[in-house]
């Protein structure tokens, strides 16, 4: 057993490898030097998919077996020329159990691949939704950043779009319904009250996909009915605001990184802290032993992941380029001996 940690930064990707003990890490890179590596996913057959971008040269997806030497795919996501709509970054790539892959992009939209990532088609039922003209960007832009799939029902998909909300399709992407009941508006639109919700991150339980957790701009929420309704789950959290939300694939523990308000976005009191819930979000506890004091860096929504091992490995990178590792489910943390560019995404894979 070994663990691979793919770390995407705003100037390239780094690959960290360790054996199953996860004590010693070999750090390699940068790969895709000069490109932002904004999303990473590993498909069920062992292939890698990376989203890359440059504010000068635009976005693309790379795919292949060797994550250090992937090939830019021929049919990288793009909107139809007639739309004149830019596609500036790929924020999330998700490989579904049925073999399909989904990419959430900025400007917001969802794309699907049925050939392992080689070509991508827009999911127009969402991308051209009647409310689209009213979609407003959040602070990070108008981006589709969270994608959930249902291992038991390949026609059911969720997509979270910043400052718009969570959408669900039950028919493979043709029709979408807003899933925000119980969550307050961040920016209400009079014509389309079903939008204006600022989801930051989503996680679900693969064994019971109707159970979903949501880090929102305005709090932490849980749904037990596939997103039809939401309840607050903030007991023990020092702040409602934050970005990443990770879930252990081995024991279901949840991990969040609360920040001090949307206005400041620092770790509260300069103390970088992970908060963990072992009871599906009912209550949260600090899990910060080994994390630094006097830290004013934050953690982006894609920059935290778990490795599926037991005890669970938890990994995250900061906007200051530090990478922290816990191999005991968050009880204690250690920094990798490296300082990278701003960390944009982290993907952990036990091989």
């Amino acid at each position: 057993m070994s663990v691979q940690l793919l770390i995407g930064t705003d100037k390239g990707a780094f690959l960290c490898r360790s054996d199953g003990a996860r004590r010693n890490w070999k750090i390699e890179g940068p790969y895709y030097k000069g490109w932002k590596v904004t999303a990473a996913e590993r498909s069920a057959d062992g292939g890698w998919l990376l989203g890359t971008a440059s504010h000068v040269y635009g976005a693309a997806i790379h795919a292949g077996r060797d994550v250090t030497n992937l090939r830019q795919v021929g049919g990288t996501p793009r909107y139809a020329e007639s739309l004149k709509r830019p596609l500036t970054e790929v924020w999330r790539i998700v490989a579904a159990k049925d073999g399909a892959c989904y990419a959430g992009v900025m400007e917001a939209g969802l794309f699907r691949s049925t050939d392992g990532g080689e070509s991508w088609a827009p999911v127009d039922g969402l991308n051209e939704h009647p409310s689209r003209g009213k979609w407003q960007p959040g602070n990070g832009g108008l981006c589709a950043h969270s994608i959930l799939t249902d291992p038991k029902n390949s026609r059911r998909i969720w997509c979270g779009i910043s400052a718009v909300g969570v959408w669900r399709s039950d028919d493979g992407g043709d029709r979408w319904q807003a899933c925000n009941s119980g969550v307050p508006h961040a920016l209400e639109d009079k014509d389309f009250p079903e939008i204006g919700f600022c989801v930051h991150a989503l996680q679900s339980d693969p064994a019971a996909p109707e159970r979903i957790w949501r880090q929102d701009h305005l709090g932490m929420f849980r749904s037990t009915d596939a997103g039809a309704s939401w309840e607050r789950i903030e007991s023990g959290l020092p702040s409602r605001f934050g970005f990443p939300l990770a879930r252990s694939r081995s024991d279901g523990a949840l991990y969040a990184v609360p920040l001090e308000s949307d206005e400041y976005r620092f770790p509260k009191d300069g103390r970088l802290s992970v908060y963990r819930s072992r009871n599906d979000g009912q209550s949260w506890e600090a899990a910060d032993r080994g994390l630094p004091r006097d830290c004013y860096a934050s953690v982006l929504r894609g920059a935290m992941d778990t490795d599926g091992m037991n005890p669970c490995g938890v990994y995250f990178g900061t906007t200051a380029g530090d990478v922290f590792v816990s191999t005991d489910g968050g009880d204690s943390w250690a920094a990798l001996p490296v300082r990278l560019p701003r960390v944009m995404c982290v993907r952990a894979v036990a091989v």
Partner: protein
Amino acid sequence: MARVEVQLPSVFTPIVAGRLAFALEAESLRAAWQALRRERPEVGLHLFDENGELRRHVLCFHNDRNSRWLQGGDAPLRDGDTLLFMQAVSGG
């Protein structure tokens, strides 16, 4: 039809497997850009935006002249000309 050499910045290395210079045949600057989008789409998508225009922070030098100073894209090409693409200082 002129045979020109296209030169890309080194950041394109992972996209073109290190082959940063290659030949292209076209009669004019604009025809060369169209040929790039058509024949080398993996490169073209990074040089041209959703409107088919050079991306905002991308420069194209025809020999030693910035294409933005030339009249439209009608500048004729000759055998041996170079088209050098690079990031503008305005790109940071």
